């Protein structure tokens, strides 16, 4: 009997020693996991490919401030990857939104940036306003896709978002087409909330204009160009990008002038249109 008791005690001790599970020093279950795929790559994939989540915030002056957040990548680079969001957006990145009924909600909007960690410091180095060059190199940014994070109450409109992290497809800003009634960029499509498990597609282009997403602070300027709904022929400034219609009877031009990489960017639009039977005026940019 005594032996049985001892044996039972040892078995109990052994079971007890194996029971439960501890949180180890690296325990940090992610708040959300995103899934991505590299759809195409026009650049050689460097060895130090990382992914950052860059949050954008508008300050009272309308400047866009950016804060980078590291993401844990479980990668099957160069094709597929999974991103673990292990921390909440920095407090600096949080915006306050107001519902129509006056209730407030806190939110943050960010973009995924796939970059080459050129200096090997493990983080995406944001650039100052007067930067003339980059530190890291942006390889690709998912187009028209942002990560939307909400605290406290959920915004009433638009619907579809939920507390925590959301994946949101953003409407596209499209340049005006020749012959269009207006000559400003137009918004195409609506915001759409996607399941977090949606596959994020990224093309690695390393296009230079992507580098602006590394600017810690940018000051957007209102687009200039046509005033009023109709186009009137105007002088096409040198260096402008001109788009003509197939008949050569209408055109739009776009001239963007950033002073430096992270300085304010303004794009001027202009347009012209003539009747098909009329002769082309002098300096008509279309053939």
């Amino acid at each position: 009997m005594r032996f049985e008791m001892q044996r039972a005690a040892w078995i109990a001790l052994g079971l007890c020693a194996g029971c439960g599970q501890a949180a180890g020093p690296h325990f940090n279950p992610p708040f959300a996991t995103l899934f991505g795929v590299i759809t195409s790559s026009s650049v050689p994939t460097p060895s130090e490919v990382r992914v950052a989540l860059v949050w954008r915030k508008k300050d009272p002056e309308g400047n866009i401030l950016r804060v980078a957040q590291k993401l844990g990548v479980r990668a099957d680079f160069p094709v597929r990857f999974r991103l673990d969001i292990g921390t909440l957006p920095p407090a600096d990145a949080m915006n306050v939104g107001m519902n129509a009924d006056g209730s407030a909600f806190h939110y943050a909007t960010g973009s995924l940036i796939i970059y080459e960690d050129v200096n090997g410091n493990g983080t995406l180095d944001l650039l100052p306003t007067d930067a003339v060059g980059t530190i890291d190199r942006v390889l690709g940014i998912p187009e028209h896709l942002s990560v939307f994070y909400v605290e406290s109450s959920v915004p009433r409109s638009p619907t579809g978002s939920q507390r925590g992290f959301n994946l949101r497809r953003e409407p596209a800003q499209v340049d005006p087409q020749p012959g269009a009634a207006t000559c400003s960029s137009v918004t195409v499509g609506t915001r759409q909330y996607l399941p977090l498990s949606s596959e994020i597609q990224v093309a690695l282009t390393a296009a230079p204009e992507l580098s602006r997403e590394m600017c810690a602070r940018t000051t957007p300027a209102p687009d200039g160009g046509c005033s009023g709904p109709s186009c009137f022929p105007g002088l096409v400034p040198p260096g402008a990008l001109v788009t003509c219609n197939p008949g050569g009877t209408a055109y739009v031009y776009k001239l963007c002038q950033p002073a430096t990489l992270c300085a304010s960017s303004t794009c001027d639009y202009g347009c012209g249109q003539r009747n098909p039977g009329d002769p082309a005026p002098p300096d008509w940019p279309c053939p």
Partner: protein
Amino acid sequence: MGSTRRAGQVVSMRKLSCRARWHVAVILVSACLFPLGQGFGAEEERLAVVVGANVGATEDEPLRYAESDARRFRDLLLELGDVRADRALLVLGGSPEDVLRSLTEVRGRAAEISRSGRRVLLFFYYSGHGDDDGLHLPRGTLPIAQLRAELLQIPADLRVTFLDACRSLGRAKGVQRGAAFALTATPDSPRGAVELRASSAGEAAQESEEYAGAVFTHFLISGLRGGADADQDGRVTLTELYSYAYRRTVLRTGTGPALQHPAFAAELAGTGEVILTRPARASATLEVPPGADRYLVFSIPSAAVVGEMLGGEISQLAVPPGRFLVARRSGANTAVATADLTWGGRRKLTDSDFQPIPREELVLRGGRLEVRTRRIEPRAGVEFAPGSAQSVAARAGAALSWALGSFDLELEAAYVGGNANTTGFNGTEQSVTGGPGLAWHTYLGRWTMAMGVGLELRYSWQHLTRPDSTRAAQAGFPTFQNSSFGSLGPRAGLRFSLPLGNHLAATLGASAAGLFHREQASLGGNHVVFRPILFATGGLGYAF
């Protein structure tokens, strides 16, 4: 020869045929002949040659304790006899040439001292086989005549010889007043030669298992430690010593297979007492309750007999600093007590300090008896677990141990608590821990060192919260993580303890353990991990 067993003790017979003819000019046993007490002071330098040989001639049965007796005697001279260590030569199991070489060396030193005008006192002690021809050493016999001649050549003012080897033929037992001789009292300190022998004519000097030594040497040492200080003036004189050793040896051997009467011979001139030791100057003194009981003092952990006391006589004994087991025999009853005099001082034992013990156990284990075998020890310290969620924690608990000879069985229980941090959470981790262990202990001077191994069993609770829990809650995420888990692994450690008295000891220890437990992965699932821990604790042990 051979040995006989009586009343739980083994008694070896030393060589019986000793026919040394020692010329005794005078036997001085009365202290009144030396009215002036002469102490050993700055004007007197003391030298000693101590010889012990377990092995004698080929026909001699080897002795068990002759060499250890010699060591004990030399230690006593250093401790209480005012003999410097470099002036006490020890010859163990050596040849006659070794002994003569030591005497020659002492002769040179004595001459040097004499030239400086200081008085020289020489001790010569021999424990081993011998007969009328000489001392039986392993590689030959040292003739008595040659030994005496060598001793006489040493320019010492006083030579005190202790021979625990043989009996002298033609001599009466005990003390005998010799032929009258012309004694001229001088203001000088006593000069001449004194000899104390373990036995008288036709008698055997005996070894005792109980004393782990020769009976005569046992009482010599006990007497020199204060047992012979009849007038309790803190000094043991030659006459006091002989009186004590004689009475005690006769009494003790009277219950054994052969009666033994120590003999005394002296050729002295001068005045004053011959003071051999000063127990009052001892750094540690042990005192027993008054009464007719007999007390045997053992040193811990060596179990060597330090001395003997009779409660009805001198009830205190000068001892070296250390721990002691005191065995009391009162008729058929036996009891033991322990005394910790590691730091010196005086320890007076009372009746309540003694706990009864079966006589058989006392006879069987002697000085190796464990009186206070159990100990409870509250401990507190700090624990380190590098690489884990809880890298530093406080540890507090208690250990209960049982001593089994040189081994300790230990059961420890403790609480471990402190902060726990993971990559995504902060919080606390608390555990109950402990387990059984086995340690082996040894003694390093005043310290006791124990090396142990054991099993560490632990159950832990984690309460972790996210550092940004308010925001996480507003975003709809869980903000805390509670988990509990068990772990198990081996443990090894080293512990030092320093006695603070008879019951208390301060301890300091460090241990290492390795715990296996399941660890939760951030993305689900779990795996077994090994968690090394180190902990250091201090404690206060109470033995009972």
